[in-house]
Protein backbone atom coordinates (compact mmCIF):
# COMPACT_ATOMS: atom_id res chain seq x y z
CA UNK A 1 0.00 0.00 0.00
CA UNK A 2 2.83 2.34 0.98
CA UNK A 3 4.58 1.54 -2.27
CA UNK A 4 1.46 2.26 -4.34
CA UNK A 5 1.18 5.65 -2.67
CA UNK A 6 4.84 6.29 -3.41
CA UNK A 7 4.50 5.24 -7.07
CA UNK A 8 1.44 7.46 -7.56
CA UNK A 9 3.13 10.42 -5.90
CA UNK A 10 6.27 9.98 -7.98
CA UNK A 11 4.23 9.43 -11.16
CA UNK A 12 2.34 12.70 -10.71
CA UNK A 13 5.58 14.45 -9.81
CA UNK A 14 7.18 13.19 -13.05
CA UNK A 15 4.26 14.45 -15.14
CA UNK A 16 4.36 17.86 -13.44
CA UNK A 17 8.14 18.28 -13.55
CA UNK A 18 8.24 17.36 -17.21
CA UNK A 19 5.26 19.57 -18.03
CA UNK A 20 5.91 20.52 -21.65
CA UNK A 21 6.75 17.03 -22.83
CA UNK A 22 3.82 15.59 -20.89
CA UNK A 23 1.51 18.15 -22.52
CA UNK A 24 2.88 17.23 -25.95
CA UNK A 25 2.24 13.55 -25.28
CA UNK A 26 -1.29 14.27 -24.10
CA UNK A 27 -1.94 16.45 -27.16
CA UNK A 28 -0.80 13.81 -29.64
CA UNK A 29 -2.84 11.15 -27.89
CA UNK A 30 -5.89 13.45 -27.84
CA UNK A 31 -5.55 13.94 -31.63
CA UNK A 32 -5.26 10.19 -32.10
CA UNK A 33 -8.25 9.43 -29.89
CA UNK A 34 -10.50 12.12 -31.38
CA UNK A 35 -9.77 11.00 -34.93
CA UNK A 36 -10.34 7.38 -33.99
CA UNK A 37 -13.48 8.19 -32.03
CA UNK A 38 -14.74 10.42 -34.85
CA UNK A 39 -14.22 7.68 -37.43
CA UNK A 40 -15.99 5.15 -35.20
CA UNK A 41 -18.94 7.49 -34.57
CA UNK A 42 -19.24 8.23 -38.28
CA UNK A 43 -19.17 4.53 -39.01
CA UNK A 44 -21.85 3.83 -36.37
CA UNK A 45 -24.08 6.55 -37.83
CA UNK A 46 -23.61 5.23 -41.35
CA UNK A 47 -24.48 1.74 -40.19
CA UNK A 48 -27.60 3.09 -38.55
CA UNK A 49 -28.55 4.94 -41.73
CA UNK A 50 -27.93 1.75 -43.70
CA UNK A 51 -30.20 -0.23 -41.43
CA UNK A 52 -32.97 2.35 -41.59
CA UNK A 53 -32.78 2.36 -45.40
CA UNK A 54 -32.90 -1.40 -45.49
CA UNK A 55 -35.91 -1.45 -43.19
CA UNK A 56 -37.92 1.03 -45.26
CA UNK A 57 -40.56 -0.62 -47.42
CA UNK A 58 -41.40 2.54 -49.33
CA UNK A 59 -39.75 3.64 -52.54
CA UNK A 60 -40.20 6.51 -54.96
CA UNK A 61 -41.11 6.01 -58.60
CA UNK A 62 -40.00 8.94 -60.77
CA UNK A 63 -41.73 9.56 -64.07
CA UNK A 64 -40.23 11.10 -67.20
CA UNK A 65 -40.16 14.91 -67.26
CA UNK A 66 -42.87 16.92 -68.95
CA UNK A 67 -45.67 14.43 -68.30
CA UNK A 68 -49.05 15.95 -67.56
CA UNK A 69 -50.96 15.28 -64.37
CA UNK A 70 -53.54 13.20 -66.27
CA UNK A 71 -50.93 10.89 -67.78
CA UNK A 72 -49.29 10.62 -64.38
CA UNK A 73 -52.62 9.56 -62.81
CA UNK A 74 -53.00 6.79 -65.38
CA UNK A 75 -49.48 5.54 -64.68
CA UNK A 76 -50.41 5.60 -60.98
CA UNK A 77 -53.22 3.18 -61.67
CA UNK A 78 -50.79 0.85 -63.44
CA UNK A 79 -48.51 1.03 -60.42
CA UNK A 80 -51.41 0.17 -58.10
CA UNK A 81 -52.18 -2.87 -60.22
CA UNK A 82 -48.64 -4.17 -59.91
CA UNK A 83 -48.21 -7.16 -57.64
CA UNK A 84 -47.01 -6.60 -54.04
CA UNK A 85 -48.04 -2.91 -53.97
CA UNK A 86 -49.74 -1.86 -50.76
CA UNK A 87 -50.28 1.85 -51.47
CA UNK A 88 -49.39 4.39 -54.11
CA UNK A 89 -49.42 8.10 -53.33
CA UNK A 90 -49.10 10.76 -56.01
CA UNK A 91 -46.37 13.33 -55.44
CA UNK A 92 -46.50 16.15 -57.97
CA UNK A 93 -43.52 18.11 -59.23
CA UNK A 94 -44.98 21.23 -57.56
CA UNK A 95 -45.11 19.46 -54.21
CA UNK A 96 -41.47 18.37 -54.60
CA UNK A 97 -40.45 21.89 -55.51
CA UNK A 98 -42.22 23.32 -52.43
CA UNK A 99 -40.60 20.76 -50.15
CA UNK A 100 -37.10 21.60 -51.37
CA UNK A 101 -37.80 25.32 -51.07
CA UNK A 102 -38.51 24.68 -47.39
CA UNK A 103 -35.37 22.61 -46.90
CA UNK A 104 -32.91 24.73 -48.91
CA UNK A 105 -34.39 28.14 -48.09
CA UNK A 106 -32.42 30.89 -49.83
CA UNK A 107 -30.17 28.30 -51.48
CA UNK A 108 -33.08 27.12 -53.63
CA UNK A 109 -32.94 30.24 -55.79
CA UNK A 110 -29.22 29.74 -56.30
CA UNK A 111 -29.59 26.10 -57.33
CA UNK A 112 -32.77 26.39 -59.38
CA UNK A 113 -33.40 29.04 -62.03
CA UNK A 114 -36.51 31.19 -61.56
CA UNK A 115 -39.69 29.77 -63.12
CA UNK A 116 -38.10 26.39 -63.70
CA UNK A 117 -39.14 23.21 -61.92
CA UNK A 118 -36.48 20.53 -62.17
CA UNK A 119 -38.50 17.89 -60.32
CA UNK A 120 -40.40 15.16 -62.14
CA UNK A 121 -43.83 13.77 -61.23
CA UNK A 122 -43.47 10.92 -58.79
CA UNK A 123 -45.28 8.30 -56.69
CA UNK A 124 -44.50 7.16 -53.17
CA UNK A 125 -45.06 3.45 -53.27
CA UNK A 126 -45.31 1.11 -50.28
CA UNK A 127 -44.75 -2.63 -50.63
CA UNK A 128 -46.67 -5.38 -48.93
CA UNK A 129 -43.76 -7.79 -48.60
CA UNK A 130 -40.13 -6.65 -48.58
CA UNK A 131 -38.85 -10.09 -49.56
CA UNK A 132 -40.15 -9.40 -53.10
CA UNK A 133 -38.41 -6.04 -53.16
CA UNK A 134 -36.13 -6.62 -56.16
CA UNK A 135 -38.85 -8.27 -58.22
CA UNK A 136 -41.33 -5.45 -57.54
CA UNK A 137 -38.75 -2.78 -58.39
CA UNK A 138 -38.00 -4.43 -61.72
CA UNK A 139 -41.76 -4.70 -62.48
CA UNK A 140 -42.18 -0.99 -61.76
CA UNK A 141 -39.22 -0.08 -63.99
CA UNK A 142 -40.93 -1.88 -66.88
CA UNK A 143 -43.98 0.44 -66.77
CA UNK A 144 -44.00 2.89 -69.67
CA UNK A 145 -42.85 6.48 -68.93
CA UNK A 146 -41.30 5.46 -65.63
CA UNK A 147 -37.89 7.14 -65.63
CA UNK A 148 -36.40 5.56 -62.54
CA UNK A 149 -37.14 3.95 -59.21
CA UNK A 150 -35.29 5.07 -56.11
CA UNK A 151 -33.47 1.91 -55.39
CA UNK A 152 -32.43 1.45 -51.77
CA UNK A 153 -29.75 -1.02 -52.77
CA UNK A 154 -27.93 1.69 -54.70
CA UNK A 155 -27.93 4.06 -51.71
CA UNK A 156 -27.07 1.21 -49.42
CA UNK A 157 -24.12 0.22 -51.61
CA UNK A 158 -22.87 3.81 -51.67
CA UNK A 159 -23.20 4.12 -47.91
CA UNK A 160 -21.54 0.81 -47.25
CA UNK A 161 -18.60 1.62 -49.54
CA UNK A 162 -18.31 4.98 -47.78
CA UNK A 163 -18.35 3.15 -44.48
CA UNK A 164 -15.61 0.82 -45.68
CA UNK A 165 -13.53 3.76 -46.85
CA UNK A 166 -13.93 5.50 -43.48
CA UNK A 167 -12.97 2.32 -41.62
CA UNK A 168 -9.85 1.87 -43.75
CA UNK A 169 -8.83 5.52 -43.52
CA UNK A 170 -9.56 5.44 -39.78
CA UNK A 171 -7.36 2.38 -39.35
CA UNK A 172 -4.48 4.05 -41.21
CA UNK A 173 -4.83 7.22 -39.14
CA UNK A 174 -5.02 5.25 -35.90
CA UNK A 175 -1.96 3.16 -36.78
CA UNK A 176 0.19 6.12 -37.77
CA UNK A 177 -0.92 8.34 -34.89
CA UNK A 178 -0.61 5.38 -32.54
CA UNK A 179 3.03 5.01 -33.51
CA UNK A 180 3.60 8.73 -33.04
CA UNK A 181 1.90 8.58 -29.62
CA UNK A 182 4.09 5.69 -28.54
CA UNK A 183 7.19 7.51 -29.74
CA UNK A 184 6.28 10.73 -27.92
CA UNK A 185 5.28 8.99 -24.67
CA UNK A 186 8.39 6.84 -24.61
CA UNK A 187 10.55 9.92 -25.22
CA UNK A 188 8.78 11.89 -22.50
CA UNK A 189 9.45 9.10 -20.02
CA UNK A 190 13.01 8.75 -21.26
CA UNK A 191 13.61 12.43 -20.57
CA UNK A 192 12.14 12.07 -17.07
CA UNK A 193 14.40 9.09 -16.46
CA UNK A 194 17.39 11.01 -17.73
CA UNK A 195 16.55 13.92 -15.41
CA UNK A 196 16.29 11.50 -12.51
CA UNK A 197 19.29 9.34 -13.39
CA UNK A 198 21.08 10.47 -10.26
CA UNK A 199 18.27 9.25 -8.03
CA UNK A 200 18.03 6.07 -10.07
CA UNK A 201 21.73 5.37 -9.56
CA UNK A 202 21.28 5.82 -5.80
CA UNK A 203 18.23 3.57 -5.87
CA UNK A 204 20.19 0.86 -7.66
CA UNK A 205 23.14 1.21 -5.31
CA UNK A 206 20.96 0.59 -2.25
CA UNK A 207 19.30 -2.43 -3.86
CA UNK A 208 16.06 -1.21 -5.44
CA UNK A 209 14.67 -3.77 -7.87
CA UNK A 210 14.13 -2.84 -11.50
CA UNK A 211 10.39 -3.19 -10.90
CA UNK A 212 10.51 -0.60 -8.13
CA UNK A 213 12.49 1.78 -10.33
CA UNK A 214 10.16 1.27 -13.29
CA UNK A 215 6.84 1.63 -11.47
CA UNK A 216 6.69 5.46 -11.13
CA UNK A 217 7.51 5.83 -14.82
CA UNK A 218 4.79 3.37 -15.82
CA UNK A 219 2.41 5.37 -13.59
CA UNK A 220 3.55 8.50 -15.46
CA UNK A 221 2.58 6.85 -18.76
CA UNK A 222 -0.79 5.81 -17.34
CA UNK A 223 -1.49 9.34 -16.07
CA UNK A 224 -0.68 10.79 -19.51
CA UNK A 225 -2.97 8.20 -21.14
CA UNK A 226 -5.83 8.87 -18.72
CA UNK A 227 -5.52 12.65 -19.09
CA UNK A 228 -5.67 12.25 -22.87
CA UNK A 229 -8.73 9.98 -22.53
CA UNK A 230 -10.66 12.49 -20.40
CA UNK A 231 -9.82 15.44 -22.65
CA UNK A 232 -10.65 13.45 -25.80
CA UNK A 233 -14.05 12.39 -24.45
CA UNK A 234 -14.97 15.96 -23.55
CA UNK A 235 -13.85 17.38 -26.91
CA UNK A 236 -15.44 14.58 -28.94
CA UNK A 237 -18.72 15.02 -27.06
CA UNK A 238 -18.76 18.75 -27.83
CA UNK A 239 -17.66 18.43 -31.48
CA UNK A 240 -20.01 15.54 -32.21
CA UNK A 241 -23.07 17.22 -30.71
CA UNK A 242 -22.31 20.46 -32.58
CA UNK A 243 -21.86 18.60 -35.87
CA UNK A 244 -25.06 16.60 -35.43
CA UNK A 245 -27.04 19.76 -34.73
CA UNK A 246 -25.55 21.52 -37.79
CA UNK A 247 -26.10 18.53 -40.10
CA UNK A 248 -29.64 17.88 -38.88
CA UNK A 249 -30.48 21.53 -39.66
CA UNK A 250 -29.54 20.93 -43.29
CA UNK A 251 -30.74 17.40 -43.98
CA UNK A 252 -33.12 15.11 -42.12
CA UNK A 253 -30.57 13.25 -40.00
CA UNK A 254 -31.06 11.44 -36.73
CA UNK A 255 -27.56 10.68 -35.44
CA UNK A 256 -27.01 8.49 -32.42
CA UNK A 257 -27.10 10.38 -29.15
CA UNK A 258 -23.64 10.77 -27.61
CA UNK A 259 -25.13 10.48 -24.12
CA UNK A 260 -26.12 6.89 -24.90
CA UNK A 261 -22.57 5.86 -25.75
CA UNK A 262 -20.68 8.24 -23.44
CA UNK A 263 -19.38 5.57 -21.05
CA UNK A 264 -18.48 3.15 -23.84
CA UNK A 265 -16.43 5.88 -25.53
CA UNK A 266 -14.87 6.99 -22.25
CA UNK A 267 -13.94 3.45 -21.19
CA UNK A 268 -12.45 2.68 -24.60
CA UNK A 269 -10.40 5.86 -24.45
CA UNK A 270 -9.20 5.09 -20.93
CA UNK A 271 -8.20 1.55 -21.92
CA UNK A 272 -6.40 2.85 -25.01
CA UNK A 273 -4.70 5.57 -22.98
CA UNK A 274 -3.52 3.15 -20.31
CA UNK A 275 -2.36 0.66 -22.94
CA UNK A 276 -0.36 3.27 -24.84
CA UNK A 277 1.00 4.73 -21.61
CA UNK A 278 2.22 1.39 -20.33
CA UNK A 279 3.69 0.26 -23.66
CA UNK A 280 5.35 3.66 -24.23
CA UNK A 281 6.80 3.51 -20.73
CA UNK A 282 8.06 -0.03 -21.08
CA UNK A 283 9.80 0.74 -24.38
CA UNK A 284 11.81 3.61 -22.90
CA UNK A 285 12.48 1.84 -19.58
CA UNK A 286 13.78 -1.30 -21.21
CA UNK A 287 16.16 0.70 -23.37
CA UNK A 288 17.20 3.03 -20.56
CA UNK A 289 17.78 0.44 -17.85
CA UNK A 290 19.74 -1.71 -20.28
CA UNK A 291 21.98 1.16 -21.31
CA UNK A 292 22.44 4.28 -19.20
CA UNK A 293 20.66 2.84 -16.20
CA UNK A 294 23.03 -0.09 -16.23
CA UNK A 295 25.76 2.19 -14.96
CA UNK A 296 24.42 2.11 -11.44
CA UNK A 297 27.06 2.90 -8.95
CA UNK A 298 29.24 5.01 -11.21
CA UNK A 299 32.42 5.02 -9.15
Amino acid at each position, binding site marked *: MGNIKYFLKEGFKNVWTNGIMSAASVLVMVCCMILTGGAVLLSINLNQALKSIENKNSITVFLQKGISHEVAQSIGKKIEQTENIFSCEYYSSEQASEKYKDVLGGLYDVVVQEGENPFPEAFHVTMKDLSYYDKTVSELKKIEKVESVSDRSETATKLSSLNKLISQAGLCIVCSLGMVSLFIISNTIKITMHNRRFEISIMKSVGATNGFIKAPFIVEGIIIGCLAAVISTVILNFVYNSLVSVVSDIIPFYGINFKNIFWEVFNCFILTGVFFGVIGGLISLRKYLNREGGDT*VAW
Partner: protein
Amino acid sequence: MIRFENVTKSYGKDCKAIDNLSLKIDYGEFVFIVGPSGSGKSTFLKLLTKEEELNSGNIFVNGNNLSTMKKRKIPYLRRTMGIVFQDFRVIEKMTVFENVAFAMHVVGAKSRDIRKRVPYVLSLVNLNDKARKKVSELSGGEKQRVGLARALVNNPDMIIADEPTGNIDPSMSYEIVDLLSQVNKCGTTVIMVTHDISIVKKFNFRVVEISEGKLKNDIKPRGK
Protein backbone atom coordinates in the same frame (compact mmCIF):
# COMPACT_ATOMS: atom_id res chain seq x y z
CA MET B 1 32.74 -13.47 3.56
CA ILE B 2 34.37 -12.07 0.39
CA ARG B 3 36.61 -14.27 -1.69
CA PHE B 4 38.23 -13.37 -4.99
CA GLU B 5 39.63 -16.46 -6.72
CA ASN B 6 41.96 -15.78 -9.68
CA VAL B 7 39.71 -12.99 -10.87
CA THR B 8 40.50 -11.32 -14.18
CA LYS B 9 38.64 -8.42 -15.70
CA SER B 10 39.70 -6.86 -19.00
CA TYR B 11 38.41 -3.90 -20.95
CA GLY B 12 39.19 -4.66 -24.56
CA LYS B 13 42.07 -6.94 -25.59
CA ASP B 14 45.07 -5.43 -23.87
CA CYS B 15 43.67 -3.56 -20.90
CA LYS B 16 43.57 -5.83 -17.86
CA ALA B 17 42.01 -3.86 -15.00
CA ILE B 18 42.16 -6.83 -12.62
CA ASP B 19 44.72 -9.50 -13.36
CA ASN B 20 44.41 -12.89 -11.71
CA LEU B 21 43.58 -11.40 -8.31
CA SER B 22 43.00 -13.65 -5.31
CA LEU B 23 41.93 -12.14 -2.01
CA LYS B 24 39.94 -13.05 1.08
CA ILE B 25 38.20 -10.65 3.44
CA ASP B 26 36.63 -12.07 6.58
CA TYR B 27 33.52 -11.03 8.45
CA GLY B 28 34.06 -7.95 10.59
CA GLU B 29 37.34 -6.90 8.97
CA PHE B 30 38.30 -3.32 8.15
CA VAL B 31 40.34 -3.20 4.96
CA PHE B 32 41.96 -0.25 3.24
CA ILE B 33 42.34 -0.76 -0.52
CA VAL B 34 45.17 1.42 -1.78
CA GLY B 35 46.98 1.88 -5.05
CA PRO B 36 47.74 4.50 -7.69
CA SER B 37 45.12 5.81 -10.11
CA GLY B 38 44.27 3.22 -12.73
CA SER B 39 45.51 0.37 -10.56
CA GLY B 40 42.13 -1.39 -10.62
CA LYS B 41 40.64 -0.25 -7.29
CA SER B 42 37.38 0.96 -8.87
CA THR B 43 37.06 -2.17 -10.97
CA PHE B 44 37.54 -4.16 -7.79
CA LEU B 45 34.54 -2.38 -6.25
CA LYS B 46 32.49 -2.69 -9.45
CA LEU B 47 33.07 -6.42 -9.48
CA LEU B 48 32.14 -6.63 -5.82
CA THR B 49 28.81 -4.85 -6.38
CA LYS B 50 28.30 -6.81 -9.62
CA GLU B 51 28.19 -3.71 -11.69
CA GLU B 52 30.74 -5.34 -13.96
CA GLU B 53 30.99 -8.95 -15.10
CA LEU B 54 34.31 -10.67 -14.60
CA ASN B 55 36.07 -12.49 -17.44
CA SER B 56 37.44 -15.40 -15.44
CA GLY B 57 37.73 -16.64 -11.89
CA ASN B 58 35.15 -16.55 -9.10
CA ILE B 59 33.93 -14.02 -6.59
CA PHE B 60 32.05 -15.19 -3.52
CA VAL B 61 30.13 -12.78 -1.29
CA ASN B 62 28.38 -14.28 1.74
CA GLY B 63 28.55 -17.66 0.03
CA ASN B 64 26.99 -16.43 -3.23
CA ASN B 65 29.01 -16.92 -6.38
CA LEU B 66 28.69 -13.61 -8.24
CA SER B 67 29.83 -15.08 -11.56
CA THR B 68 26.74 -17.29 -11.70
CA MET B 69 24.35 -14.91 -9.97
CA LYS B 70 21.18 -14.05 -11.95
CA LYS B 71 20.43 -10.43 -12.82
CA ARG B 72 17.26 -10.33 -10.76
CA LYS B 73 19.22 -11.33 -7.63
CA ILE B 74 21.62 -8.37 -7.90
CA PRO B 75 19.39 -5.88 -5.98
CA TYR B 76 19.26 -8.33 -3.07
CA LEU B 77 23.06 -8.65 -3.11
CA ARG B 78 23.36 -4.87 -2.96
CA ARG B 79 21.03 -4.72 0.01
CA THR B 80 23.75 -6.49 1.97
CA MET B 81 26.12 -3.64 1.11
CA GLY B 82 26.13 0.01 2.11
CA ILE B 83 27.94 2.16 -0.40
CA VAL B 84 29.62 5.46 0.42
CA PHE B 85 30.74 7.60 -2.50
CA GLN B 86 33.54 10.11 -2.87
CA ASP B 87 31.13 12.72 -4.26
CA PHE B 88 28.59 12.00 -1.47
CA ARG B 89 25.75 11.28 -3.95
CA VAL B 90 23.14 12.85 -1.72
CA ILE B 91 19.99 14.41 -3.19
CA GLU B 92 20.42 18.14 -2.62
CA LYS B 93 16.74 19.07 -2.82
CA MET B 94 15.83 16.61 -0.06
CA THR B 95 16.31 17.03 3.67
CA VAL B 96 18.81 14.97 5.64
CA PHE B 97 15.98 12.79 6.96
CA GLU B 98 14.50 12.29 3.47
CA ASN B 99 17.86 11.31 2.00
CA VAL B 100 18.34 8.56 4.54
CA ALA B 101 14.67 7.51 4.45
CA PHE B 102 14.88 7.29 0.65
CA ALA B 103 17.28 4.33 0.93
CA MET B 104 14.81 2.50 3.19
CA HIS B 105 11.86 3.42 1.02
CA VAL B 106 13.29 1.97 -2.16
CA VAL B 107 13.80 -1.43 -0.54
CA GLY B 108 10.16 -1.44 0.50
CA ALA B 109 10.48 -0.59 4.22
CA LYS B 110 7.33 0.40 6.09
CA SER B 111 6.81 4.05 7.04
CA ARG B 112 6.62 3.12 10.72
CA ASP B 113 10.04 1.43 10.56
CA ILE B 114 11.49 4.34 8.62
CA ARG B 115 10.31 6.81 11.28
CA LYS B 116 12.03 4.71 13.98
CA ARG B 117 15.23 3.73 12.22
CA VAL B 118 16.28 6.98 10.50
CA PRO B 119 16.61 9.12 13.68
CA TYR B 120 18.63 6.32 15.30
CA VAL B 121 21.07 6.15 12.38
CA LEU B 122 21.31 9.93 12.23
CA SER B 123 22.25 9.93 15.91
CA LEU B 124 25.08 7.48 15.13
CA VAL B 125 26.59 9.98 12.69
CA ASN B 126 25.83 12.98 14.92
CA LEU B 127 23.30 14.56 12.58
CA ASN B 128 20.22 14.32 14.76
CA ASP B 129 19.85 18.07 15.10
CA LYS B 130 20.10 18.58 11.32
CA ALA B 131 17.50 16.02 10.27
CA ARG B 132 15.10 18.64 8.87
CA LYS B 133 17.79 20.67 7.11
CA LYS B 134 18.14 20.62 3.34
CA VAL B 135 21.31 18.81 2.30
CA SER B 136 22.31 21.81 0.19
CA GLU B 137 22.81 23.75 3.45
CA LEU B 138 25.37 21.28 4.83
CA SER B 139 29.17 21.26 4.68
CA GLY B 140 31.10 18.59 2.75
CA GLY B 141 31.83 16.59 5.91
CA GLU B 142 28.19 16.69 6.96
CA LYS B 143 27.08 15.59 3.49
CA GLN B 144 29.42 12.63 3.74
CA ARG B 145 27.92 11.75 7.12
CA VAL B 146 24.49 11.78 5.43
CA GLY B 147 25.97 9.42 2.84
CA LEU B 148 27.28 7.19 5.62
CA ALA B 149 23.90 7.23 7.39
CA ARG B 150 22.21 6.23 4.15
CA ALA B 151 24.69 3.38 3.71
CA LEU B 152 24.04 2.19 7.26
CA VAL B 153 20.29 2.57 7.41
CA ASN B 154 19.41 -0.77 5.83
CA ASN B 155 21.70 -2.54 8.29
CA PRO B 156 24.15 -3.94 5.69
CA ASP B 157 26.69 -6.69 6.29
CA MET B 158 29.42 -4.56 4.79
CA ILE B 159 30.22 -0.95 4.03
CA ILE B 160 31.98 -0.21 0.77
CA ALA B 161 33.50 3.27 0.80
CA ASP B 162 35.08 4.66 -2.33
CA GLU B 163 37.47 7.41 -1.23
CA PRO B 164 34.97 8.80 1.27
CA THR B 165 37.49 11.40 2.43
CA GLY B 166 38.48 12.54 -1.06
CA ASN B 167 36.31 15.66 -1.09
CA ILE B 168 36.53 16.79 2.53
CA ASP B 169 39.10 18.53 4.71
CA PRO B 170 41.61 16.46 6.80
CA SER B 171 39.97 16.94 10.20
CA MET B 172 36.61 15.82 8.82
CA SER B 173 38.36 12.93 7.06
CA TYR B 174 39.54 11.51 10.37
CA GLU B 175 36.05 11.93 11.77
CA ILE B 176 34.54 9.96 8.89
CA VAL B 177 37.07 7.13 9.17
CA ASP B 178 36.53 7.17 12.92
CA LEU B 179 32.79 6.71 12.33
CA LEU B 180 33.54 3.86 9.95
CA SER B 181 35.77 2.22 12.54
CA GLN B 182 32.96 2.49 15.11
CA VAL B 183 30.61 0.83 12.63
CA ASN B 184 33.25 -1.85 12.14
CA LYS B 185 33.47 -2.41 15.90
CA CYS B 186 29.77 -3.33 15.81
CA GLY B 187 30.67 -6.20 13.46
CA THR B 188 30.12 -4.66 10.03
CA THR B 189 32.83 -5.36 7.47
CA VAL B 190 34.31 -2.16 6.01
CA ILE B 191 36.16 -1.94 2.71
CA MET B 192 37.54 1.50 2.08
CA VAL B 193 39.38 2.65 -1.01
CA THR B 194 41.69 5.57 -0.31
CA HIS B 195 44.64 7.55 -1.62
CA ASP B 196 45.29 9.20 1.73
CA ILE B 197 48.36 7.57 3.24
CA SER B 198 48.07 9.61 6.45
CA ILE B 199 44.72 7.97 7.18
CA VAL B 200 46.11 4.53 6.44
CA LYS B 201 49.00 5.21 8.83
CA LYS B 202 46.79 6.69 11.55
CA PHE B 203 44.32 3.81 11.67
CA ASN B 204 45.66 0.38 12.34
CA PHE B 205 43.74 -1.75 9.85
CA ARG B 206 44.58 -4.25 7.14
CA VAL B 207 45.96 -2.65 3.98
CA VAL B 208 45.58 -4.27 0.55
CA GLU B 209 47.64 -2.66 -2.17
CA ILE B 210 46.62 -3.19 -5.77
CA SER B 211 48.91 -2.27 -8.62
CA GLU B 212 48.24 -2.87 -12.31
CA GLY B 213 45.32 -5.07 -11.36
CA LYS B 214 47.45 -7.36 -9.22
CA LEU B 215 47.73 -7.78 -5.49
CA LYS B 216 51.00 -6.07 -4.60
CA ASN B 217 50.88 -6.07 -0.80
CA ASP B 218 48.54 -7.37 1.85
CA ILE B 219 49.58 -5.91 5.21
CA LYS B 220 47.83 -7.20 8.30
CA PRO B 221 47.14 -4.73 11.15
CA ARG B 222 49.88 -4.38 13.74
CA GLY B 223 49.47 -6.45 16.89
CA LYS B 224 46.31 -8.26 15.77
